[in-house]
């Protein structure tokens, strides 16, 4: 496996490889999102209790799940960066943190928009909302720490330490916040048993979820490439790349 993986530790190979993947990710995410959101917004049944407002679920839950998934991915990248000293893992933390923060913000905002008609309030200090808010703070901390260092590689290492500390703390924060009794409905999807919702709601949800996942992968690819270029701007291959681009643009 290492033999198969090690060419991708080279920034140049990785840069071109991600470049090839991006169009595929775009295509898949567009197809899935058009299909999934179409199903979700037009054809899935309204909830017997929550009515039409349940449709925000198809945006809210994927965003919330991805916001946590991205943090986990960031922490794994951080561990890779610290243990195996992989420069590309540092680049991927820098690429992932703002995406994760955005998805956390989307989850919070859609949650507020959903909470207003359902609970009659935009915000409530409920366990899940609070831990999502703290997740946003953790993301913002990683981003701020990253921006504070002038040296990109130091920034990457510092952010790695913080991401790992954060991921150790996240379950503790989550369970401590859970102590306040909770208004939020229990988990519907991420239980290991059969999901407790009807199939004609579950199918659009799962399609939307994968659609958003590929969207994340696509944005990540773009940002990852930009980070690689920024970190390797002194390398000859970047210079030839820029020269080629200028030639094709006729500068």
């Amino acid at each position: 496996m290492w033999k198969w993986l090690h060419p991708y530790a080279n920034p140049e190979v990785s840069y071109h490889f991600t470049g090839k993947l991006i169009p595929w990710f775009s295509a898949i995410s567009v197809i899935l999102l058009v299909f999934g959101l179409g199903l979700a917004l037009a054809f899935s049944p309204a909830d017997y209790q929550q009515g039409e407002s349940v449709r925000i679920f198809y945006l809210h839950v994927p965003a919330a799940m991805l916001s946590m998934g991205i943090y986990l991915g960031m922490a794994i990248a951080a561990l890779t960066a610290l243990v195996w000293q992989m420069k590309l893992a540092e680049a991927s933390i820098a690429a992932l943190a703002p995406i994760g923060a955005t998805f956390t913000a989307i989850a919070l905002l859609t949650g507020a928009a959903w909470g207003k008609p359902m609970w009659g309030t935009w915000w409530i200090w409920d366990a899940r909302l609070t831990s999502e808010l703290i997740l946003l703070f953790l993301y913002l901390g990683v981003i701020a720490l990253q921006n504070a260092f002038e040296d990109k590689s130091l920034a990457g290492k510092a952010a790695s330490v913080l991401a790992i500390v954060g991921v150790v703390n996240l379950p503790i924060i989550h369970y401590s916040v859970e102590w306040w009794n909770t208004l939020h409905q229990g988990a519907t999807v991420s239980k290991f048993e059969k999901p407790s919702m009807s199939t004609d709601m579950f199918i659009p949800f799962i399609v939307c979820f994968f659609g958003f996942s590929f969207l994340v992968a696509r944005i990540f690819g773009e940002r990852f490439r930009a980070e690689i270029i920024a970190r390797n701007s002194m390398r000859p291959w970047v210079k030839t790349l820029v020269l080629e681009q200028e030639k094709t643009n006729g500068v």
Partner: protein
Amino acid sequence: MQTSYSSAFVNILKRDLTIALRHRDDIINPLLFFIIVVSLFPLGIGPVSNTLMKIAPGVIWVAALLATLLSLERLFKNDHSDGSLEQLLLSPCPTFILVLAKIFAHWLITGLPLIIIAPLLGVLLNLHQDSYTALMLTLLLGTPVLSLLGAIGVALTVGLKKGGVLLSLLVLPLYIPVLIFATSAIDAASMNLPYNGQLAIIAAIFFGSLTLAPFAVGSALKVSTN
């Protein structure tokens, strides 16, 4: 020359305490801040004693968090600027021991005075009379956690020119669990309910951070000193 771990620990502890005792302002200022912040709340909210009794645990704990935050920078800043931090990291003794000694010294200088003065502030805020033991116990178990987790934040930002605000952004979210369990223990005590569950959890957080945080501090210091 090979020194034993315990003598290295004691030496660093002595050194940090001596430095701190020669700059008494550094000990007194966070304490004054603690007292002033707490006394602002009755002025802002109004002197109704029932309201004060309700918010007292939260106010005392939040003020303790902020006071600790204020004093955190001293933990590594001077050592970093005069170069002794790098010498410490170069020593053959494991960083874990050295960092632990520095954090312990920091707690003795800031955490302990906070604990001593907290009951007085409890009186000012009309804290429920059954809550004092709980307040002391949560502070005794909780303030070391604040020093331990805060040390990670300082270690990450010590090399930066504008680390101060960033430090609070990094550290405060990590303090949330301690805050929640501590205030809920004090509240439970005021209703004459058992609060040993909350105390046990704070103790668990304390031992968890005691064993893990010095590693994070060590690797963060290695990043900061490059």
